[in-house]
């Protein structure tokens, strides 16, 4: 397998939700590529379809009301959307694993954390109880849980948020997956723990050479974690670039506006309001014609209200969905 091979290729993914006669296009025509050993950051506001994209990859979109209506998700050469459920189950947790946002609720309160991590290993690798237990201790040491051996007997309520998230990471890494999907893994943690977890994930990514799809609404976190970034808005990818370009020369007005909304200490005039993007995210049930961002865009011109923009290539590895670059 070549180093720069595409591990995951998402083409024209469309995941829609059918609610009371309405169609919510939570993910609409999304293209993403993740190369092996790299981290792709997926940023966007709440409800823009980041998590649905992740759930589509791992096959956890609740059906009904959700349905993947089109597209392909090619993971390591196979289209995941065509796999029967039984094969998909073998992939989940083994080749693709997931880390959730809320470490408080994503662990089962009635089992010890060691048992829960051992469960993944036993499900996928058929190890004996003892072998699995040893592996769990190894994993706990790897993710930096002190007194790993003792801690395996702990129950989730006996652990702090940061420790629980470490357990989740241990669980996600237990079977040496090729792709880890981290769905806002640090949102529920305070900043010191957040820094530790991010550092840990970066370190583990180097060691295990897994790819990460990192979902967040925090641009600072993305800058630290990702090599490539996709900015998502109302179910569509707005801009895709490597991390330096995206932060250095953002092209899409939405990306520019997002970066502008980050307040910087010491800059700006006292008493001045923080800059924000005017308007609100359009309802997924009632999307505007033309460009989805047109009603909030400072650069909008008349065509923006009528013509739906495509992804336009600006540079190799830099695309933006804006008519300015058509």
């Amino acid at each position, binding site marked *: 397998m070549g180093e720069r091979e595409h591990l995951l290729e998402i083409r024209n993914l469309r995941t829609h939700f059918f609610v009371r006669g309405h169609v919510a296009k939570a993910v609409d025509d999304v293209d993403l590529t993740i190369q092996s050993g790299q981290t792709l950051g997926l940023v966007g506001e709440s409800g823009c379809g980041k998590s649905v994209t992740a759930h589509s990859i791992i096959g956890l979109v609740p059906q009904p009301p959700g349905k993947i209506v089109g597209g392909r998700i090619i993971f390591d050469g196979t289209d995941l959307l065509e796999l029967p459920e039984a094969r998909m*189950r073998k992939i989940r947790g083994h080749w693709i694993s997931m880390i959730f946002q809320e470490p408080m609720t994503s662990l089962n309160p009635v089992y010890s954390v060691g048992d829960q991590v051992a469960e993944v290993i036993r499900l996928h690798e058929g190890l004996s109880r003892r072998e699995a237990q040893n592996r769990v201790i190894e994993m706990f040491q790897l993710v*930096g849980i*002190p007194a790993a051996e003792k801690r395996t007997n702990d129950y989730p*309520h006996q652990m702090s948020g940061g420790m629980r998230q470490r357990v989740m990471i241990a669980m996600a890494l237990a079977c040496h997956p090729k792709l880890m999907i981290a769905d806002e893994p640090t949102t529920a943690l305070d900043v010191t723990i957040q820094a530790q977890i991010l550092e840990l994930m970066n370190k583990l990514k180097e060691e295990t050479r897994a790819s990460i799809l990192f979902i967040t609404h925090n641009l600072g976190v993305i800058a630290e974690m990702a090599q490539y970034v996709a900015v998502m808005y109302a179910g569509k990818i707005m801009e895709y670039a490597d991390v330096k370009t995206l932060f250095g020369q953002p092209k899409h007005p939405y990306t520019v506006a997002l970066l502008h909304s980050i307040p910087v200490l010491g800059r700006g005039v006292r008493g001045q309001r923080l800059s924000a993007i005017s308007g609100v995210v359009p309802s997924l049930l009632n999307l505007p014609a033309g460009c989805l961002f047109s009603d909030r865009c400072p650069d909008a011109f008349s065509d923006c209200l009528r013509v739906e923009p495509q992804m336009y290539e600006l540079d190799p590895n830099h695309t933006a969905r804006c008519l300015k670059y058509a």
Partner: protein
Amino acid sequence: MTVISSRPLVGKAGVGSKAKCTWATFFSQPFWKAVVSTPRDRRLPRAKDGCNGANHAHLPRSSPGLNPQLSDSLWGGTGRSLRSCSSCRGRSVTSDPEYRHPFFDQLEQLRRNKTAVAGLIIISIFVLSALLAPIISPHDPIDGSLYDQIKPPIWFTMGTTKHILGTDDLGRDILSRIIYGARVSLAVAVVSVGIAFVFGSLLGAFAGYFKGVVDNLIMRVMDILLAFPHILMAIVVVAYLGPGLRNAMIAIGIIYIPRYARIVRASVLEESEKDYVTASRSIGARDLRILFVSVFPNCLAPLIVQTTLGFASAILDAAALSFLGLGAQPPTPEWGAMIAMGRSHILRAWWVMTFPGIAILLAVLGFNLFGDGLRDALDPRLRD
């Protein structure tokens, strides 16, 4: 590696005060572990004296892979949750030798609840007399003596020390029959509640987990079962199966299924929305495994309460069926059947039906009191 040096045992805050136990934590650890591993003195509430703040230094220090200086300052706030001792805030719970299993908080809560204790005592008396019936009962429950027909209890002038609670019209000792009757009643309670528990939980779990058509199908059938007055329903079932103790148990089991199905369905509906279910699915677990291994144990607390209360109603219903002649058949010493037999003598020998009646009352009361206390102890929202 963490080094926990020995330090004086430190007291916990007054037991039961703001104790963090939920239904989930009650079952989160096998309590026998805690019972085995916790020295007796630690289970008792003690003053918060031994905590001088200085012994807070023995906390996990190093973590592999992190800069030691950095981790030293960082670990101070991680790896532990706050416990109830106000002077020990921030201490590690797990590596803490004083860590107290939530089971003990709940046990303590139960112990302080006087009515629950009363209920437990009553239940214990009945259970003991059922177990020790051949030893403690003064006479055989079935063989009567024709010389001793309708003897009044001991405190009447006609009474004899031979028959403390008197005898019935066949000369059988009432106390002995009541003691043996406890066996029958408890057996009925356990078997019929067991039937209801197993089938009700299964049906409710499937309904709650698979939702949609399955849910509708199962729950509408349950609604139909619930639409009949339940004793009438039991009579119908017994009439169909034929009278007898075994069929009465089955009938009572069947009419109790909807209660359990509803409770389990509600809990499963609530639990299956939680993240750990998604997490379980994301590691590749199957539906049935998720349902019974991950979700179901989280639904047990309300079920246990319902089961305890269910024993009470099962005893009552079994007695009712036997009273109607559909349950235990003579000469089985069953409380309901005894009442039915004594009914014809109520004016000249009131004790023949009164004492079995009191036995039923006490047994039902015992289970109800204990069940209520258990509910209070398991549900932190109902405390204080």
